[in-house]
């Protein structure tokens, strides 16, 4: 018994040192639990009965900085919440612990999950661990989550995905990033960015790891009214069994092949298509023209929702505050201006523009109709029904695209396409459908290539099963 725990202690110490060393340069973590905490967690789990099901037994898991944990601060990478101690664990954190997972710490992100750089004033910027001798972009907003996986810091990482937040970083660093269907996983305890877009995201080295975590988190939650009920899950599962078919048909949206796609990316996309054909899958062209406007819809709707959600950080009920004594209104506006970063401020202002009386009836309303058109566009192509709206059906099982237009770039390189970097990924958030980014070799520059696979709403299991054949 003593030898057993001595060996465990040595293993924990060695792992802890490795984590500290690996994270020193890339800054994937914002906080890390102590070695004593990890050791105690290992011991506590080892004392549980062997017959108890612990699918994540002793697995080190990291959690994005915008997900509430009792053991670590939950700052959302913002000075506005830099001292916030959550009094509760998010539902997903509780589920991870019950499954035997050990929460290693929190991962870096863009402030309030707004951005594509994983940079903030509180913790600095996460860099791509794949590139050893230079600072390359890791993408965002869950760049810390993906970087932690790529640096072998943890087994899996749980983040959020509002518009490609987990998938883009995963694609940049060469790991798997998965966004489940809207409503599959509870969001209780995840700080809201845009309520109609937010989903929990999962990153791991392979699809098997993602699937394992997904199965732990995929359950109803009474605390989240948008989480799919038990009855609905059962109904959908039964319907999918009835509608199961072969051969599997893959759709390639040819209108997503735009001039911004790097030639190497296009070559790898074609290479993956050839791989699909050689494995017996039927590949056919499809059209998704309205989905190209997903970024515009995202800007209009998500920023508006964010403006509403962040209104509560007014230093009266929530948020940091200044020491000086000012009138209430001055305190609020001064503190918000002081503590919020530039990117967040810009998005809040754009959200206010979208909702302004002169625009809301034209712009915001139009965005809702375009979003519905995007949803219809996907439903008309998928063979399975969406079970959410009664739309005509198509003949496609999965849709395959690149995850990005170009690979990770040096941080110092100015880019006029940064606001389009997640164009391939945002449409899945529009329609609420599941999407996964899997690594597919490397580009000519040696950096990872990401392939995105999408499936019909609530068909997450089949998507992961299909993707697991390649990653």
């Amino acid at each position: 018994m003593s030898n057993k725990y001595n060996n465990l202690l040595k293993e924990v110490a060695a792992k802890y040192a490795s984590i500290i060393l690996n994270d020193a340069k890339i800054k994937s973590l914002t906080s890390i639990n102590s070695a004593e905490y990890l050791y105690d967690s290992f011991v506590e789990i080892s004392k549980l009965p062997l017959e108890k099901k612990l699918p994540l037994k002793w697995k080190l898991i990291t959690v994005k900085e915008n997900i509430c944990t009792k053991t670590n601060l939950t700052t959302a990478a913002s000075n506005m919440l830099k001292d916030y101690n959550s009094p509760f664990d998010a539902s997903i954190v509780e589920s991870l612990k019950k499954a035997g997972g050990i929460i290693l710490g929190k991962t870096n992100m863009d402030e309030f999950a707004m951005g594509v750089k994983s940079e903030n004033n509180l913790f600095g910027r996460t860099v791509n661990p794949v590139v050893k001798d230079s600072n390359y972009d890791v993408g965002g907003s869950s760049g810390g989550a993906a970087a932690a996986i790529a640096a072998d810091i943890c087994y899996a990482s749980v983040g959020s995905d509002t518009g490609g937040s987990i998938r883009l970083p995963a694609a940049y660093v060469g790991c798997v990033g998965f966004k489940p269907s809207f409503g599959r996983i509870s969001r209780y305890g995840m700080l809201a960015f845009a309520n109609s877009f937010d989903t929990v995201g999962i990153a791991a080295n392979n699809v098997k790891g993602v699937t394992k975590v997904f199965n732990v988190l995929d359950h109803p939650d009474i605390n989240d009214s948008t989480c799919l009920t038990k009855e609905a899950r059962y109904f959908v599962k039964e319907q999918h069994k009835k509608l199961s078919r072969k051969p599997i048909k893959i759709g390639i949206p040819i209108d997503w092949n735009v001039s911004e796609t790097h030639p190497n990316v296009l070559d790898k996309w074609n290479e993956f298509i050839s791989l699909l054909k050689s494995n017996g899958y039927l590949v056919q062209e499809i059209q998704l023209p309205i989905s190209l406007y997903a970024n515009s819809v995202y800007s209009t709707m998500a920023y508006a929702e964010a403006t509403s959600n962040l209104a509560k950080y007014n230093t009266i009920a929530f948020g940091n505050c200044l020491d000086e004594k000012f009138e209430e209104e001055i305190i609020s506006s001064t503190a918000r201006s002081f503590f919020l970063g530039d990117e967040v401020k810009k998005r809040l202002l754009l959200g206010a523009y979208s909702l302004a009386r002169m625009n809301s009836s034209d712009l915001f309303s139009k965005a809702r109709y375009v979003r519905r058109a995007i949803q219809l566009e996907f439903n008309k192509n998928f063979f399975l029904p969406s079970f959410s709206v009664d739309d005509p059906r198509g003949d496609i099982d999965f849709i395959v695209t690149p995850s990005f237009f170009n690979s990770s770039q040096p941080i110092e390189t100015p880019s006029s396409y940064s606001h389009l970097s997640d164009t391939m990924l945002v449409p899945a958030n529009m329609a609420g459908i599941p999407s996964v980014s899997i690594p597919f070799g490397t580009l000519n520059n040696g950096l990872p290539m990401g392939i995105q696979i999408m499936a019909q709403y609530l068909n997450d299991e089949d998507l992961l099963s299909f993707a697991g054949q390649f990653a």
Partner: protein
Amino acid sequence: MPFLKPSKVSLKRILQGNPPKPIGLTEYGHLLRLVGLREADSKEENERTILKLNEGIIQMHAIERLDTSFIKEPFRTLNHAINAESLPSLPDQEPWNVFQNAKKRDGQYFAVYSKLKDDSSNESPNKQ
């Protein structure tokens, strides 16, 4: 033969759409008040922010060129699968049937009203 060939269609050009009227200092100040923020201390910083906002506004207005006349209803947040479960609900009560529906209940108020009505109907026509 590759499945896809290099494209000449530019996404950036697609998303530019019809540039709207850019916002100026007045509109910027209004937006700041709406979100509870203050102007930056320097004029240059304010101008940079306005420039970024106008770039974002151009992207937002790109959707105006799309024809959505075939869409009957706007997007609704996904939450429950249709036909998955049905919740018990009371039958609809139309305003003009309010008294008829009330008879199905035993509420005190309506019971009193019914009693008064019954008493009134029992009065003799020769009472006066």
